[in-house]
């Protein structure tokens, strides 16, 4: 689709590491093309006018001023391009992210419970069922998310701090919630950013396409240590994610 228009690498965007990221990058390129054309167009006009109509060159001003349809045509073009961006890119992309969640039980699912200033990551374990949580069971040193150990589903659950392991080339669904204030779950390479709002559980989905290590950066001011509320994402084949979860449980690294 007109690949030469894609200038995302010149814009300095981070590597794209999810299936939907190229779509956003392409749209970003188009918007910046529009900005560039308008900027250069008006810039050339502006500089020309400053020389052409200085007082010494043009001692008497024209009462009539500019005529012609150029301005209306420019308005029309801007309206058309903006409409095309909305209908052709913005609506479908947003619809895909918000409405086209992968079918139940096909995706890799985790819960992230944010707090000042860490990302608690709750994996359901082999049974694929998340154990019950209760805020009254929360204990910062032993049970940061208040997991109810008496729930059979919780037996194989894993809770890690700041360590998110995801399978490559498989849809991922993350349920985001916060214990205290608003945080924002952002991974620049994933083109994902979602506010984590206390009182709400907000699901997001995406499909990692690139193996490697990435950083989770809290994007919403959440207090004094906001600047170092950092988590780590490891994207690797599903088998290694499964092994890693089992290994963490065996080592007792989890809470």
């Amino acid at each position: 689709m007109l690949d030469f228009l894609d200038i995302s690498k010149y814009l300095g965007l981070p590597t794209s590491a999810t299936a939907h990221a190229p779509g956003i990058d392409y749209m970003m390129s188009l918007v910046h093309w529009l900005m560039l054309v308008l900027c250069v167009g008006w810039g050339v006009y502006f500089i020309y006018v400053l020389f052409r109509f200085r007082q010494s060159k043009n001692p008497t001003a024209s009462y009539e001023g500019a005529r012609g349809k150029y301005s209306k045509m420019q308005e029309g073009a801007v309206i058309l391009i903006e409409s095309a961006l909305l209908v052709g890119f913005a609506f479908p992309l947003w619809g895909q992210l918000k409405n086209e969640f992968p079918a139940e039980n096909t995706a890799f699912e985790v819960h992230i419970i944010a707090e000042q200033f860490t990302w608690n990551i709750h994996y359901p374990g082999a049974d694929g069922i998340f154990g019950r949580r209760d805020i009254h069971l929360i204990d910062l040193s032993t049970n940061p998310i208040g997991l109810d150990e008496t729930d059979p589903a919780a037996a194989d659950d894993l809770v890690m701090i700041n360590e998110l392991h995801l399978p490559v080339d498989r849809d991922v669904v993350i349920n985001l919630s916060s214990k205290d204030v608003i945080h924002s779950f952002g991974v620049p390479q994933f083109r994902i950013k979602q506010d984590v709002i206390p009182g709400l559980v907000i699901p997001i989905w995406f499909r990692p396409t690139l193996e490697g290590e990435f950083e989770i950066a809290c994007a919403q001011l959440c207090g004094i240590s906001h600047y170092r509320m950092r988590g780590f994402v490891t994207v690797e084949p599903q088998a290694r994610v499964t092994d890693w979860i089992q290994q963490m449980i065996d080592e007792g690294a989890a809470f």
Partner: protein
Amino acid sequence: MTNTEHDVSGHAHHELSFIRKWIFSTDHKVIGIQYGLTALLFLLFGFGLMLLMRWQLAYPGDPVPLIGWLFSDEQMPGGVMLPEFYNQLGAMHGTIMVFLGVVPLAVGAFGNYIVPLQIGAPDMAFPKLNMASYWAYFLGGVVMLASFLVPAGAAKAGWTSYPPLADIETMGQTMWLFGMVFLITSSLLGAINFLTTIIQLRTEGMTYMRMPFFTWVQFVTAFLLLLAFPPLEAASVLQLFDRLVGTSFFLPSGLVVSGEVLDVSGGGSPLLWQHLFWFLAHPEVYVLILPAMGIVGEIIANNTRKPLWGYKLMIYSIIFLGFMSFIVWAHHMFITGMGTALSAFFQITTMIISVPSVVLLSGLFLSLWGSSLRFTTPMLFALAFLPMFGIGGLTGLPLGLAPTDIPLHDTMYIIGHFHYLVAPGTILALFGGIYYWFPKVTGRRMNDVLGKIHFWGTFIFMNGIFMPMFIQGLAGVSRRLYDGGATYEFASNVIHYNEFMSISAWLLAVAQLPFIFNFFWSIWKGKETNENPWEATTLEWTATPTPPIPHGNFATTPIVYRDPYEYSVPGEETDFLPQNQP
């Protein structure tokens, strides 16, 4: 040209005491000057906060040189800035620049001083309300400044004050909320006054379509202030209740802070605050930008020696812009989890509002065609406003479209975007306005050489500060980071710009010295000017002496015979026809 032949001393004014004349004055011109001086001081103070922050951003963890020892151990032990102090500086920089600096200067000072003169009114419609408005603003400012002195310092939840963080912050946040209540009250009083004045006190012949562009934008701005600010006043009171009497308007159930279950009733909504806040704060953006555009329009018409291009079209655009500004607010909230229907609505309205913005900028650009350009000091500022506003406006596009907002939201890109509108945009225009109307207020002109040095320094260094923000933002660097992003690996390629931006900021401070000197020196020593030094057409220059008559403005009520910008009318002797010339 002017009607000075009447004996104005017999205008039934007794000699006023110093306090009634300069402190508790009801004369719109004195109140305008009070607003202007106070706002300029706050702008300088708010800028100073940023100069401190820029040290920490450029050299994270290094002690602040020279002045570091001035601060307390709760702010900068050993001269090293603490994150909590950094957050205070950030929140207060935003609050002070917007609510105590730019709006009071653009509306309180320029609007107050110029609007009644431009429409031929003897004063504002409610002079005492006008005085009350200034003093409410002043109190709001005092409360905001005093908040630095309370235990644990000033507000540190950002100028947006999102709960629950703002609800659980220290006492400075309470001060911030009280300050906002005063400031919004002040804006409301001012807005009612402007609307009544412009509707009721236009002189004979001053029809709506003969009103100068500047008065028109103040008129629309007053509507925005009147209708957009009350929701935040209400929201501030609700947040005060949350903090002081234990309500939970913005607190959901089940909050656990530092491992402890918060003892509140819950059931509230953090998003409610964001809606109320942005319902104010988006129209607020136009409150910041429209008066600047009005100033630029006046200066451009005067220095191109021709009428503004498409005057009526521009007026309609301003009205449409004002209306639309009420229904775009949630584009600040795309990543709160907004679904497709709501986001489609707000993306559409956001694209629609870009249309009148383009019309306005195009109109100002096209006004230059066929002109006879005078590169006076105010004109340099007005001309520079155009491309700066253009960059600021265009970079709003990817933020107003939800998918492209994902990577850019809450990054340095948006900081660059809105600063291009408000700093190289509005503040340049405000400087231009000061140079343009300074002779009107003082009867003396500011020095041109110093003015041009001030212009070039300001223009270059402002771009040096804000341009690299786009690069950092595209790379994904978040805003509001105490270490400027040094924690993050993905920021490592662009982190070095922080030093460049900081040095630009400090040089920008140096570039203000000629202005500050010029300002005070010219009050007493500037070259004396004649009645109408710019050979302008609007009533504030042509119908009243320079400086104008205290209390009453006009010796005889001016009558308006023609459009506001009748420059270079073919067949006329002079290249300007005053509005009040029969």
